[in-house]
């Protein structure tokens, strides 16, 4: 029983979504449209679980004086600061919640994102070695595309941007397509195992 009802719900929910795509007639349209909204609501509501876990983990760290526990109050205070300003002042532009978000969270996000500029350089330096012919091909195509990306490439030889476009639209498209079609098979098979309850380990408990 512990597992049968959840599996039945999975099956019904999955089938509704599939039928919603193929059958325009009611009740499938109504059911499908509603279910899409419902599951978003349920998944969103779960964020309170995460929030409680975050607080639990950091309070525990402080209580047990685990490694780096002195930084845990920073996380807790940051979390509560957003929560309290959000609840009191709302999310309207110009209010404290928005101010904190714009002046702290946004620039930190942009900074973490921009670390990638450094990491692509170090990864390229280390990984792009002509150690065998396949690696050489990878290196060459990366190199040509890089040249084609900037005006300097066209100045060296005016065919380089065209070579870039060719690499991106022919071999790259072919590769992406193979990955996409293959992965789609994986998605179909995995979804199928979920919907029909063949795979149930995500519920905790294999059988």
């Amino acid at each position, binding site marked *: 029983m512990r597992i049968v009802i959840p599996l039945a719900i999975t099956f019904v929910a999955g089938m509704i979504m599939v039928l919603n795509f193929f059958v325009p007639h009611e009740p499938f349209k109504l059911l499908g*449209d509603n279910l*899409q*909204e419902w599951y*978003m609501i349920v998944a969103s509501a779960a964020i309170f679980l995460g929030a409680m876990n975050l607080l639990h983990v950091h309070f525990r760290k402080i209580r047990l004086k685990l490694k780096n526990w002195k930084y845990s109050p920073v996380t807790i205070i940051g979390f509560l600061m957003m929560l309290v300003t959000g609840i009191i002042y709302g999310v309207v*532009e110009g209010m404290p919640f928005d101010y904190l978000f714009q002046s702290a969270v*946004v620039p930190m*996000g*942009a900074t973490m*994102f921009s670390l990638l*500029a*450094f990491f*692509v*350089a*170090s990864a*390229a*330096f*280390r990984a*792009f*070695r*002509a*150690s065998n012919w396949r690696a050489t091909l990878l*290196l060459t195509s990366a*190199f040509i595309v*890089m*040249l084609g*990306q*900037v*005006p*300097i490439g*066209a100045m060296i030889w*005016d065919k380089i*941007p*065209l070579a870039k*476009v060719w690499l*991106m*639209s022919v071999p*790259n*498209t072919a590769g*992406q*397509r193979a990955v*996409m079609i293959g992965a789609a098979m994986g998605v179909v098979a995995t979804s199928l195992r979920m919907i029909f309850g063949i795979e149930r380990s995500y519920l905790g408990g294999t059988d």
Partner: protein
Amino acid sequence: MAGMIEKMGNLDRRIIFILIALSVIIPLALGLIFPNPVGAEPSRALFDYVEALPAGSSVLLSFDYDPSTMPELQPMAMAMLQHLFRNDVKVVGMALWPMGASLGQDAMSSVGDSLGKVQYEDWCMLGYKTGGGVMIVRLGSGIQAVFPTDKDNVPWSEIPMLAAYSTLQDFDMVLSLSAGDPGIPAWIMMAGDRFGVPIGGGCTAVSAPQFYPYLGTGQLVGLLGGLKGAADYETLVREHPDAVGAEGGRAVAGMAPQSVAHLVIMLLIVMGNVAYFAEKKRKGGVK
């Protein structure tokens, strides 16, 4: 000498980091500008498609990004809006990302003002709604139900231009400026594939390769990839004979540090390979 080459192969990554930082900071500080030629690329395809829209057509422009990808996507928004407004195309804005709505409104009002376009007559911003692809499907059966008001809570019925639109199919094309999920794929799956509305747009350079397959199948009519795509569009918009009052491109200015940093990375790769082969040769003797 040999020792030095070997060291080069195992360069501390922090030296690489410093080189990259310098190659960005110095051209920015000096304000360098390089020319930007545009070939037969997907950015030209998009430009041509938009150029062919007759005056009075309608475009749904979706701002599916947030401030973290502004450097790439905001210049695209500016260039596209200049192009659309110049050709008297009506633009309805919306956003799949919460922060996209105000970024979009800023872009629309600043370009609109410079080209004499009036809010609620030539353009309006519906705002943000959650739901991604699911929400797009609902747009297909009725826009007003999803956006009863615009971003500033002006009711739908009080916005004159919106009377022309009831569903997604009333638009001649959808342009999405997409930083990730939800973005262009959602528009292709839910608006293009389901309702047959032509989809075009711009995206960060990282997601561009993923969208090339959609260009081949015609699911996307054209695409701007990253800062280069933005610079291309700026160039095409400004090269055009009608280009009056087109403002100097931010993307074109950003191309100088791009070029220098690209060169630095390419030099690093070359150095790495030189070191690799030098070491292989040395070890080859021992083998």
